[in-house]
């Protein structure tokens, strides 16, 4: 089971950087756990903390008390690089339910969806509008409605439709995960094997 997602109204944390790779989201040295929990502590570790690794970097948005909420808004090509699902785990564990960007890397997008974290792709213009609204008013709220596939900037009413494939939408709305479904297909899979083995 994955956490269900229907609607979310929350302010957002802006991270207007492009090409954020999964090594930045969670550096490799923190991938050594054999359990899924606790990765949020090291989310964006090397950007959140100063070079010696102890003091929070005050310039990083996650350390700015003005910004909070369950939505991360990031520059294009978010989640590129390593396939580590730990990146999605870290974002979810930190408390994010939605990542908004104008472009997502493929593997990250899949990993996020498999963990109930919604990768929400908007156009470049709408992304710029979100950034500018948050810059003007850090407490500005966004409303995400998965059923209707809309994201709205509540303070000015601007709204945009987003795409998500029907299967994954159903999974998120109902908290279903793929493993149970695939296991239920065992007879069909067996049949495929019988027809396709030499």
């Amino acid at each position, binding site marked *: 089971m994955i956490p269900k997602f229907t609607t979310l109204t929350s302010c957002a944390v802006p991270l207007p*950087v492009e*090409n954020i*790779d999964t*090594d*930045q989201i969670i*550096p*490799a*040295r923190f*991938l*050594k*756990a*054999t*359990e*899924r929990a606790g990765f949020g502590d090291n989310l964006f570790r*090397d950007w959140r903390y100063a*070079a010696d*690794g102890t003091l929070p970097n005050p310039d990083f948005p996650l350390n700015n008390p003005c910004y909070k909420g369950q939505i991360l808004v990031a520059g*294009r*090509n978010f989640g*590129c*690089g*390593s*396939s*580590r*699902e*730990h990146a*999605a785990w870290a974002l979810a564990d930190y408390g994010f339910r939605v990542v908004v960007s104008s*472009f*997502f*890397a*493929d*593997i990250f997008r*899949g*990993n996020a969806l*498999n*963990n109930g974290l919604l990768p929400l792709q908007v156009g470049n213009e709408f992304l710029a509008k979100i950034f500018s609204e948050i810059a003007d008013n850090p407490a500005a709220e966004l409303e995400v409605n998965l059923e209707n596939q809309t994201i709205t900037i509540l303070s000015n009413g601007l709204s945009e439709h987003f795409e998500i*494939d*029907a*299967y*994954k*939408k*159903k999974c998120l709305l109902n908290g279903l*995960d*793929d*493993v*149970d*479904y*695939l*296991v239920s*297909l*065992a007879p*069909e*899979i067996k049949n*495929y*094997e019988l027809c*396709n083995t030499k």
Partner: protein
Amino acid sequence: MAKTLIDKIWDAHTIRTEEGGRCVLYIDRQYIHEVTSPVAFAGLVSRGIGVARPAQITATADHNIPTENQHLPIAEEQSRKQVETLTENCAAHGIELFGVGHPQQGIVHIIGPEQGLTQPGMTIICGDSHTSTHGALGAIAFGVGTSEVEMALASQCIIQSKPLTMRILVNGELTRGVEAKDVILYIISQISASGGTGYFIEFAGTCVRSLSMEGRLTLCNMAIECGARGGIIAPDEVTFKYLGRVEPQWRDLYSDSDAAFDKEYSFDAADILPMITWGTNPGEGIAIDGKIPADADPKALSYMGFEAGHQVIGTPVDYVFVGSCTNGRIEDLRLFASLVHGRRKAENVVAWIVPGSKKVERQAREQGLERILNEAGFELRQPGCSACLAMNADKVPAGKLCVSTSNRNFEGRQGPGARTMLSGIAVAAAAAVTGKITDPRKIFQL
């Protein structure tokens, strides 16, 4: 209807298609390693189910392990625990494991092809983005997350949308000193680090055909670095010779001549020069004697300590790393050894020469490469992912500059604060013997 090679293999493995287009895709072979598998096995246990097809899974330990003194227990506790967990999981579920010290151990993307486990026409996944490597043998191979590792353990299937198809043609002959690594760094510099996102790439053209299997593996390895899910090369006599055999149906694995691709690029091999990256993503590459673009990303410049419009030639180098799933094959070590033969490692350089597998390590000994390396002041380490991702003891210290034959130059990839410049073998060898960024064509007989 005319089909691309990608479509042919994908469709032949699609068991059913869900509403919205996601496919239940049958996976012929799964590779697993210690980092991205433990949570997947734990998921099976919590569901009370087992591994569906253990005979179609192969495991190795590579990311976390040290590259020296592998006979000793792994010093770092968490790394040791991850490797032990893999060993326990493989034993519990009847999965073949090439663990530390095993004669077939190595980096997952080196051992699959070298042991004939990766074959033309297969679908292959691994919880590792560089699974794209295996496409060099004509397979649909791509990296997945741990949830999908669990799916494939549980059912031998995953659910994914079918990728768009892209063909990248490289025609013509490579010029002096240009390697497969330069070809892929050039392609990524042209189409950007996200230019392939959403696509699966077929590499084709006379230049691609002329590459050895090792070169093709290097090419496909970095398909992910332009965002593509994977890269594939239609199998041919080079493939069959590498595998030492051919099955009749492998000869049917090609794109129909009138098949349409969703996107196509064409490059001329003669335009490609030895490459090096100056920035913090693999698309930020230039010819070794070129200049950093005037509009270069200021954040990347600041991290790397470079200036827009400047050359990188002559920049002092602290570390040189030869290895990884990109350039850790015997052909890579052979080229490196031939270039440093009769020369000396520069005093200011720390060099890590890391074979990609135990087999490569043995070959390097048997072929006299280790002796040449030692005479030139280099040591051959033991196989593993090493300094590619700083999960093990091989880390580049903060601020230090490393010329690396690996695949990613992200901030901190080789250690917190480490600065990485990606290159092929010849550029790395030139840096290793001169101690600075050097055009290999100026100092080597290439």
